């Protein structure tokens, strides 16, 4: 177990309470889910597509699609997995349609936060650069874990894999990343 728990932004039970209220014609409940998930969804899509405009467009599509298909969500504490399955499919559609892949380093600099002012931010930049060189399937794992802030169980649902397999794959990537980061400092 990690001693420092990740500040996950959501809880399945509370999501289901909001989802149940939203289904009873209480739009405020869906808005509460929107407020809760906007940033993770946006961060996830920004990481996937690499520029702000497309991330905003896809984020819009994700939430409007979720609203349209809301009757299909049946609880079970899996709203995050359901929502990020939509988000992941939208990002896959984006690349399929546009037939391109934008590496993170090509993001317009004026739309990105300046991360060069402090050591920590410099390290964050290094981490991002290293991750940007990973194969898409590895980036997908890290994006779901750290941008979407998903639990391993939720990731397993989205990726249709065993939870332990997902956990091992993420640990393996973190170990690789740790080694590469240390080598950068050496």
């Amino acid at each position, binding site marked *: 177990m990690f001693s*420092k728990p*990740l*500040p996950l932004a959501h809880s*399945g039970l509370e999501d*289901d309470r909001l989802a149940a*209220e939203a289904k009873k014609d209480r739009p405020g409940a869906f808005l509460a889910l929107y407020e809760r998930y906007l940033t993770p969804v946006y961060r996830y899509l920004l990481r996937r597509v690499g520029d702000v405009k497309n991330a905003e467009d896809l984020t819009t599509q994700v939430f409007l699609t979720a*609203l349209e298909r809301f009757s299909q969500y049946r*609880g*079970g504490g899996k709203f995050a997995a359901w929502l990020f399955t939509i988000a992941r499919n939208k990002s896959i559609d984006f690349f399929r349609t546009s037939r391109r892949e934008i590496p993170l380093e090509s993001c317009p600099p004026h739309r990105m936060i300046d991360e060069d002012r402090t050591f920590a931010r410099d390290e964050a930049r290094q981490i991002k650069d290293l991750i940007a060189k990973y194969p898409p399937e590895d980036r997908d794992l890290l994006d779901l874990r750290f941008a979407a802030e998903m639990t391993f169980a939720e990731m397993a649902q989205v990726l249709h894999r065993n939870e332990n397999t997902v956990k091992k794959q993420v640990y393996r990537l973190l170990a690789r990343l740790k080694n590469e*980061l240390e080598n950068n400092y050496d």
Partner: protein
Amino acid sequence: MTDSHDLNDIESKVFDSYQVETPDSSFANTLRHHIVEASAHTRTRSTPRFSLAGRLALAIGSCVLALAILFIANPKSNLVLGMRQLFSFIPGVGIVEEGAPLRQLTEPVAETRAGITVTVDQMILSPDLTPFQFQVSGIPETAYPQNAAEACPEPPYLLLPDGSRLDYAGFNAISAYANAPSYSKQFTLAAVPPEVDNATLVMPCVLGLKTGAAPEGWEFPLSFVPVSAEFVSSPVEEVESQPATVAETALAKPQGPFDGVFTLSLDQKISQEDGDIYFGKISWQDNSGFSTAMMESFDLTDAEGNRVMTDFASTDPSWNPFEAHSYNPVAFKIPATTTSGPLTLTVTRIMANLHVDGVSFSFDAGPNPQIGQQWVLDKDITAGGYQLHLISVTRISNGYEFAFENPEEVGCVDLSINDTQYAQGRCGSNYTRYEYAGDVPTGELTVKINNLDLHLDGTWEYTWMP
């Protein structure tokens, strides 16, 4: 492999590296507004405001669609072979009886006021519904509202020559992007009577824009003519499976109580320029106790095993005009760019609702239970073949909450207390909560278990040549 304890630090750093990007506040506000607006239409859709005749027309339309699926679904039926040729698919309308009297706009109608152009570019008048599409362009960024209260509150309607009006009837699709200079919307109105050949589309304000920021009181005189010979409709085809590669494994957990209960089929294909729409169904055995089932987890792959994206996958059980049939419809669209080789639909999980009979338990809440009071029951209950574990019941502000520890497959547990009608029910995988508008039941309470939501794992593959 590196021990996970060694990775605490790098995990924190990676997490921090992901936390620097946040959505722009104006984008967040605009999207929030779009959600509020779309929510309003969704609610309207659930309680349509059109006339009895309109509802009847909708019901007939649904039945036509349902019949199309119902009959075409059974390829062995001679009746099916006859019926199949009677239907065609029209984009924006759905499956209609071939030869149904369809009309369209004589021509698109547009008007520009204060730099903003509204164009009514398509309207199809079927015997059942009137879907139409309009576009708005030339929108200044300042015309978008910052919150829902500022937004145009009234959707467009159709004013008929006799003074009656046709209101929004649902099925809208939105193509809206934050602060974009243009957008398009699709709406569906109730059916226009066949003798009416002109009407006025009234747009009290421009949907999606801030009240007062764009001209209001738009009126578009429309006239209707029979659809032209070039009007695009697509024949409904039967999906041909590949006998050599079909693996008709029944969908259920292999050793579970419902092994072999569910089957999945694809029945119809509708070819369009931008892709193919497939209709099918998830069926379950009669008398199995299930009332609904839908794909919860599925994948579509090509011959090389690459994932094929579906444009939409509607398994909404609310569309269910025949009350007692044992299936739910499945629908999805595959973009035209898909490879031409065989496709395989693999379903790995379904969500199904199981009716439970004759299972109940009791507890004594006393004559005056207090909010927050809890009864620890710690009781095993067998329902639907599953052993549920009821941990406790808690008195909440307007009712009771039941806490369960259930098998992973069991989602919501639907209950009723003393057969009393509740005002609001909520449930999750491990709780069920009921709130009452009036008096909360007290004393000796009999709680019946009515239904279980089940999430059933399994594998079902269907391979066919697109």
